[in-house]
């Protein structure tokens, strides 16, 4: 069966200098929700806009259900529903007028009234777009994509800047679309969003995929499953609190160690092996434990470990 979206060695170079994408390969299956994660400037938006046919790649190939943008763009446009980052819809049209306008571009759109009802915008149908709240606008942006009756839904950071309630409403909508057999490609800044929505995801940094898989798989492979966080005091001021990470990394069962503002985090597979050894090492060095917690590894840990950056911090 052909993949919903497939791309091979995509490259994009701006002004012959800036390499936004440096060989991207993806295969997204029909019916799955695929997430592209990465810090700002990693190339997510460039990648998604090339897949959407809005940008020309410098080299490489894109196939959507086996068809290419050069030969079948009219057909592909009928199949895609797209929500871009930062589109400002016309403020002095009503919600209904906006949806009907977008519906008019497609050969066989869904009924505007149904889509508005689904997205909880029915009672706002006659309000001007300019009067909507941020969450309502974002849902309207997704509605303009859904009214196309698309086979693939592209969402570029659909929940950035939304309150938790509006985010959950959007997740619900994406889930419904997927349960109806649709394919979703989304980019996001939020780990919980990716973990909750995505069947598979790829982490992009510096224009390349650095890890790919299901959220659980990535956490297991790269997050070390568990994280032990602690801080110690050496009693006298001579030793720096961060100190050298090597002694901690050498403890049994530790896969990786990093320090963050005096808090040392160890990625471990088996806490019951590592923690006794850790306690021994602390007392053996005449230090005092100030703080110790263990928790399940999250995508955030995977991300920080891979990119050395927190996802949400500005690049």
């Amino acid at each position, binding site marked *: 069966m052909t993949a919903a979206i497939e791309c091979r060695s995509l490259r994009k170079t701006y002004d012959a200098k800036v390499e936004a994408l440096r060989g991207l390969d993806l295969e997204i299956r029909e019916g799955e929700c695929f997430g592209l994660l990465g810090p700002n400037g990693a190339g997510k938006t460039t990648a998604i806009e090339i897949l959407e046919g809005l940008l020309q790649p410098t080299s490489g190939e894109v196939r959507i259900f086996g068809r290419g943008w050069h030969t079948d763009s009219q057909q592909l446009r009928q199949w895609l529903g797209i929500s871009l980052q930062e589109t400002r819809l016309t403020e002095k049209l009503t919600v209904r*007028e906006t949806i009907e306008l977008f519906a008019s571009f497609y050969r066989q759109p869904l009924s505007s009234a*149904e889509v508005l009802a*689904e997205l909880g915008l029915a009672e706002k149908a006659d309000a001007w777009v300019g009067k909507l709240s941020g969450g309502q606008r974002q849902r309207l942006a997704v509605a303009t994509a859904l009214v196309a009756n698309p086979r693939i839904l592209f969402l570029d950071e659909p929940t950035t800047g939304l309150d938790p309630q509006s985010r959950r409403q959007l997740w619900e909508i994406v889930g419904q679309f997927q349960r109806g*057999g649709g394919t979703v490609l989304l980019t996001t800044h939020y780990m919980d969003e990716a973990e909750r929505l995505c069947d598979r995801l790829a982490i992009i940094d510096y224009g390349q995929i650095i890890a790919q898989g299901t959220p659980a798989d990535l956490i297991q492979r790269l997050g070390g499953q568990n994280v032990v966080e602690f801080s110690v005091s050496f009693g006298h001021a001579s030793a720096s609190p961060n100190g050298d990470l090597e002694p901690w990394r050498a403890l049994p069962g530790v896969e990786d160690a990093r320090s963050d503002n005096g808090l040392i985090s160890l990625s471990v597979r088996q806490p019951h092996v590592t923690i006794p050894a850790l306690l021994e090492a602390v007392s053996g060095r005449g230090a005092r434990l100030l703080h110790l917690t263990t928790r399940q590894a999250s995508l955030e840990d995977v991300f920080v470990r891979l990119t050395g950056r927190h996802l949400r911090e500005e690049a």
Partner: protein
Amino acid sequence: MSTPPKTVRARSATSEKSLNVAAPESGPREENPWLRAGANRNGRWSGYTHLLAARLREMQREPEVIFWVFLFPLLLAFGLGIAFRSRPASIPNVAIAAEPGADALLQLAQRSPQSLHARIVPEAEALDGFRLGRYDLVVIPTERPKNAPGDNTLPQIEYRYDPARPESVLARAQTDDVLQAAAGRANPLPAAAQASSEPGARYIDFLIPGLLGMNLMNSGMWGVGFALVDYRQRKLLKRYVATPMRRGDFLLALMTSRLVLMIPELGLLLAFGIVVFHMRVAGSWLAIVLLGVLGAATFAGLGLLTASRAQKIESVSGLINLVMMPMWIFSGVFFSYERFPAVVQPLIRALPLTALNDALRATILQGAPLLAHAQAGRLLVMLAWAALSFILALSWFRWT
């Protein structure tokens, strides 16, 4: 907006059904019509008609558009029409200094009371009044030389006038004429004069077609150029081209919206001229509307050209003003461009607004047919600008 989770779930039951209808089991949807039961089908022009309706609504809901497109030209026409309204040249006020012979002069002057108002006042008062502008001219009777020809009961006269005051110059010429004729001068050249201040030759008649042209330029450049860059800056153009929307339809809808707006624009200003200033329209309305269409299309093309690359509305505003400024000055909106040196006349005539204004004036004021020699040339100038700007704009235009 806060929807309790319960409602979300309740809604999802119905909505899943509708999304399921849309979901393909396999292969492209077009090959699977059974899945599409009840789906809407859009025809070839559905996108175009929706885009046009959306654009018209958008403009109609923008109070600024209503003001600048409709009200502003009317205010301008009204203000300038009042300021430069035609008045009959005022009748000169003449003071005759109370000297011997003054009475005889007054009798002569009173034979043509419609040409001048004359009265006898003491000389000092007459000169004072002249300084203050109460009198345009002072006539001082003096002693007649012994050997002068003609009626020797009349004095010799001396005029006090100010060559820098047009009304004073006029008063001197007119008074002299009246007095000499009354004193028996025979005109060697028989002449008859007929007063003619017909509608059609007044300033307001010159002005209204110029304002029509200027308004078509303003609203074409702003309505297309500004709107496009605004869409581009808001990433709305990009959002549109991410749909199957036909790009040509989008531009066509924008142009059509200009043409739709052009009709009331033209009609309102002309109706205002007719009702308030009793302007007479000599040409056919069809010809005027056709000129309006051509003018609107020309400036829509120029608007498209200025907007083809600009990313920010600030930069397109500058460009639009840069393009329009020379035409405000040179194209004969408020005054005739004949006042500029002859060398630049061909350049001025090559400007699209000059061609439009000249064509509108010829049609509205003189009833010139569209294909008459001079008119056809103006139409060609506009067509050339329209064609050139559309071709360049479409090859340069950026959607993102």
